[in-house]
C-alpha cells in the first residue's frame, strides 16, 4: 500500500514562515506553565551556528538564561510573545532565543534556564550538544556526488522513522503496541511506505489512524521535530523467546536548498527556498529494530485454558429456561475485556446428548481505543432439544491468563437447566412406492379397550404348576397302570385263560406244520407225510426234553404217561406216526386223506399242548 500525502507547500513568504514557526512553538508547549528548552540541532560542526529557544506556555517574568560559557552568543535574547484564542480561551506563550556559536569542539551541556510563572520558579531542561571538528571548506566547489552524499547525511539527521513499543518484556499472548513515528525537520513534498513490517511471530491487529497523518511537535534529544504517527499496531506474541519487530521502510522526496556560490550578503539573503533555489532529493528512511523479550506463560494452566491473555469478564445466559421439544433455545457466552479477543475459541461445553447443538455464531464488538484492543466476543449456541424432560447443561468455565496479576483466572458459569415440555412431533411421511393404491388410512388409532366380564387372578398365581395341575397331570398315568393290572387280574380269574392257552397251542402246532401245509397244497404225498412225521417227532422231543437219539415210540409213551397225558391222546399220536411211516410208501390214498391227517395232527398237538400245561 502506498499512501501518499502532500505536505503543505512551504514556498510561502519569508515572514509567513516566521509567523508559522512562532505558532508551532506555541503548540509545542502544550500545557500551561511548561518551560522547555530546544535546539534546532544538537550536532554541529565547528563554525556552524545553533539556535536555542526557551519557551514558556504562559506569561512569566525574571527569565534567567543559563551560562553559555562554551559558546559565543551571536544574538539574543530575542524575545517573542504570541497570543492565541482557542475556543474562546486566551493563552499566551513567550519564548527567548539565542544564536550561539561553539568556541571549541567536544560535548557540551547547556545548563538550565529559569523563569517565574505564577509565583513558582520553573526550570527548563538541559541540552547536550556535540561539536565536531570543522571541515576545511575546500576552495573548489564539491562535486555533485559529494554534494549528494552530504545532503543525504544532512537529511538523515533531520528525517527518520522510529518504532517504539509500550513494553519490551511481555508474556506470550499479552498485547503490546508498536508505534511507527516519522520525525522530521525538513520539508517533505511526498512520501510512500515501501516496506510494511511483517511482524513475524506475532498476531497483529492494525489500529486505525486518521487517514492523513497529523503532525505535532515533539522534542527528542533536545531537538524539536515535527512528528506524525505512520502506523500503530497491536501485537500479540505467538511464541516465546526474543522476537524482533521488523523495521519499516519509506521513500521520501525532500526539498533541500542548494547553496550559492560566493558568500556575499545578498546571496545569503536570497539563499532561501522562497527564492526558488531549491532541489528535490529522494531519500530512503528505515526505522530501527526493536527486540521484544517474550516470556512463556506459567505451566500450571487450568484445563480449560485455550490461550486467552488479558483482562476479561464473562457473562452467560440462556434466553429461556422453558421450551417445547424441537423449539430452539439460545445459550450466549459473552467474553469482554481487553486482550487477544479475536483468538478466543468457543468454550468447550458438555451439552446433553439430546440437545442438537449447532456451531456457535461468533460476533465481535471490538474497539481499538488509542492503543489497547478491547471489546467483547459473543458466542451464540443454538440448541434444539429433541426430547422432553429436564436437560441440564453442567457448568463450564472460561480461563485466561492475567499478565498484570501474573496468574490464571477462571470464570465459571452456573448450571443451566432447560425444562423441555412436549412439543409438536416432526413426523416424516413414509414414501409409498406402490403402483396400486393402498387403502387410505384416515387416521391411525389404537383399538378400543376390552370390557365385559373377566376374572381376576392374584398376581403370581397360575394354574400351571399348581397342586391341582399336577394331580390332574399324574392321575391318568396311575389310573392307566391300575386299570391295566385290573384287566389282567380279571382275565386270569375268568375262564378265558383256557381259551387263550388253546389258541396259543394251536399257534405252536401250526408253526410246526408249516412245511406240511406247503406240501399238502402242492399235493406232494411223500414229502407231506415225511413232514408230518418229522413235525410230530420234533414236537414231542422238544416238548418232553428227550434227545433225538433216545426218541422211540416206547420212550414217548412212557414219558407222556408219566406227564399225565391221557391214553387216548397217546394212542392217537402213536397211530398217526405209524400211519405216516406207512403212508409215505403206500401207493393209494388221495388228497382227502392227507387233509384229514393234517387236521388230526393239529388237533393232536393242540390237545397234548393243553394237557401238558
Amino acid at each position, binding site marked *: 500500500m502506498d499512501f501518499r500525502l502532500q505536505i503543505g507547500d512551504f514556498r510561502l513568504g519569508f515572514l509567513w514562515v516566521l509567523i508559522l514557526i512562532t505558532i508551532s512553538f506555541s503548540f509545542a508547549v502544550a500545557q500551561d506553565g511548561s518551560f522547555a528548552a530546544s535546539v534546532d540541532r544538537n550536532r554541529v560542526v565547528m563554525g556552524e551556528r545553533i539556535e536555542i529557544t526557551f519557551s514558556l506556555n504562559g506569561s512569566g517574568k525574571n527569565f534567567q538564561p543559563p551560562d553559555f560559557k562554551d559558546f559565543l552568543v551571536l544574538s539574543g535574547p530575542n524575545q517573542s510573545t504570541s497570543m492565541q484564542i482557542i475556543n474562546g480561551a486566551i493563552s499566551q506563550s513567550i519564548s527567548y532565543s539565542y544564536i550561539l556559536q561553539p568556541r571549541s569542539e567536544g560535548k557540551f551541556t547547556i545548563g538550565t534556564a529559569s523563569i517565574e510563572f505564577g509565583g513558582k520558579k520553573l526550570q527548563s531542561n538541559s541540552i547536550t550538544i556535540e561539536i565536531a571538528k570543522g571541515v576545511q571548506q575546500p576552495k573548489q566547489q564539491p562535486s555533485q556526488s559529494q554534494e549528494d552524499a552530504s545532503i543525504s547525511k544532512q537529511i538523515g539527521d533531520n528525517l527518520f522513522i522510529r518504532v517504539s513499543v509500550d513494553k519490551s518484556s511481555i508474556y506470550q499472548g499479552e498485547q503490546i503496541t508498536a508505534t511507527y513515528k516519522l520525525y522530521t525537520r525538513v520539508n517533505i513534498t511526498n512520501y510512500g511506505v515501501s516496506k510494511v513490517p511483517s511482524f513475524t511471530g506475532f498476531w497483529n491487529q492494525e489500529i486505525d489512524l486518521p487517514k492523513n497523518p497529523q503532525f505535532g511537535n515533539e522534542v527528542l534529544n533536545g531537538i524539536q521535530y515535527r512528528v506524525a504517527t505512520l502506523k500503530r499496531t497491536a501485537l500479540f506474541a505467538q511464541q516465546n523467546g526474543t522476537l524482533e519487530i521488523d523495521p519499516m521502510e519509506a521513500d521520501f522526496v525532500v526539498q533541500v536548498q542548494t547553496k550559492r556560490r560566493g558568500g556575499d550578503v545578498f546571496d545569503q539573503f536570497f539563499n532561501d527556498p522562497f527564492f526558488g533555489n531549491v532541489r528535490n532529493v529522494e531519500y530512503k528512511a528505515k526505522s530501527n529494530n526493536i527486540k521484544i523479550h517474550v516470556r512463556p506463560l506459567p505451566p500450571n494452566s487450568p484445563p480449560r485454558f485455550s490461550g486467552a491473555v488479558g483482562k476479561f469478564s464473562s457473562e452467560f445466559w440462556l434466553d429461556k429456561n422453558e421450551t417445547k421439544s424441537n423449539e430452539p433455545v439460545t445459550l450466549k457466552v459473552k467474553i469482554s475485556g481487553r486482550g487477544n479477543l479475536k483468538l478466543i475459541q468457543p468454550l468447550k461445553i458438555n451439552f446433553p446428548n439430546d440437545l442438537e447443538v449447532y456451531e456457535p455464531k461468533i460476533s465481535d464488538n471490538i474497539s481499538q481505543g488509542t492503543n489497547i484492543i478491547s471489546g467483547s466476543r459473543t458466542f451464540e449456541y443454538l440448541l434444539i432439544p429433541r426430547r422432553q424432560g429436564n436437560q441440564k447443561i453442567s457448568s463450564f468455565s472460561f480461563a485466561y491468563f492475567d499478565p498484570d496479576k501474573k496468574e490464571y483466572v477462571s470464570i465459571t458459569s452456573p448450571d443451566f437447566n432447560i425444562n423441555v415440555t412436549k412439543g409438536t412431533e416432526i413426523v416424516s411421511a413414509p414414501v409409498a412406492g406402490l403402483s396400486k393404491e393402498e387403502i387410505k388410512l384416515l387416521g391411525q388409532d389404537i383399538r378400543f*379397550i376390552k370390557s365385559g366380564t373377566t376374572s*381376576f387372578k392374584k398376581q403370581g398365581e397360575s394354574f400351571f404348576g399348581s397342586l391341582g395341575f399336577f394331580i*390332574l*397331570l399324574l392321575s391318568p398315568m396311575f*389310573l392307566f397302570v391300575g386299570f391295566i393290572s385290573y384287566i389282567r387280574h380279571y382275565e386270569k380269574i375268568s375262564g378265558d385263560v383256557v381259551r387263550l392257552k388253546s389258541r396259543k397251542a394251536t399257534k405252536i402246532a401250526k408253526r410246526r406244520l408249516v412245511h406240511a401245509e406247503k406240501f399238502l397244497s402242492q399235493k406232494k404225498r411223500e414229502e407231506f407225510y415225511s413232514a408230518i412225521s418229522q413235525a410230530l417227532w420234533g414236537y414231542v422231543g422238544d416238548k418232553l426234553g428227550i434227545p433225538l437219539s433216545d426218541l422211540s415210540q416206547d420212550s414217548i409213551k412212557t414219558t407222556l404217561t408219566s406227564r399225565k397225558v391221557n391214553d387216548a391222546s397217546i394212542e392217537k399220536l402213536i397211530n398217526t406216526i405209524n400211519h405216516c411211516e406207512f403212508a409215505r410208501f403206500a401207493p393209494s390214498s388221495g388228497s382227502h386223506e392227507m387233509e384229514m391227517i393234517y387236521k388230526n395232527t393239529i388237533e393232536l398237538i393242540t390237545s397234548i399242548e393243553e394237557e401238558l400245561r
Partner: protein
Amino acid sequence: MKYIYPLILILFLSAFSQADEALVQFEQANYLYRNGDFKNAAILYEKIVHNGYHNSELYYNLGNTYFKLDETGKAILYYERAKKIYPNDEDINFNLKIANLKVVDKIEAIPQLFFIEWWYSASKAFSSDTWAIFTLTTIWLGIILLLLFRISKSPFTRRAFFFGGIFIVAIAGFSLIFSIQQNKSEKSESMAIVFSPSVTVKSSPDEAGTDLFLLHEGVKVEMVDKVGNWFKIKLVDGKIGWLPEKDVEVI
C-alpha cells in the same frame, strides 16, 4: 351424574370379595375411559394392579389409557405385560405396534433360525394356563384311548385306538413343554422398558463409563446382568451396554 351407575355398582358389590371389588373397579375404570376421562381411569386401573390383581384385559386397557395420555413408555409397558399373559392376542399386538411407532429408536431385530422362531411362536400361541389345560385334556384323552386299545378285541379298533392314543399322548407331551416354556417366560423378569425420556447407555456400570448409545422412552431391552444399581442390557439387534436401574421398568 355420569358416575351414578358405577357408584351404585360399587355400593352393591362392596360386600363381596376382593376379586369382585376389582371387577367393579375395572368396570368403573372402563366407564371413565369411554367418557374420555383417561386420567382417572388410569388411577383406577392402577389401583386394581396395586391391590394385587391382574389379567390381560386389565393391562391392555391400562396400556390404552396411557397411550391416550401420551405416555408412550407406560403404554408399551402395560401392553407388554398384557402380552406376557396372552402372547397371541391380536388387539394387544396391534396396539403395541401403534405405540411402538411413537418410539424414537428403530432397532432391527437379528433374524433367528426359522425352526427356532416356529418353536417359540408355537409356544407363544397360548398362555401357560391354556397350554396346561390343553395338556391335561390331551393326556386324559390319550390314556382313555390306550385303555380302549387294551380291552378292545377287533384288530381294526385295536390298531386305531393304539395309534390314536400314542399320537395324542405325544401331543400332550409337546403341550406340556410349551406350557413349561410359556410359564417360564411369563414368570421371567428379564425384559424391561426404558422409562426415562432418554438415557445414555454406558460401556461400564458407572457414570464415568464411555457413552455407547442413546435410548429413548419405550424401547424394550433385555436385562442380562445386574451390578449395584446398574443393569446390563441387550437390545434385539445385539447391542450391549449398562444403564441405571432407575431408567427402566421391568415388564
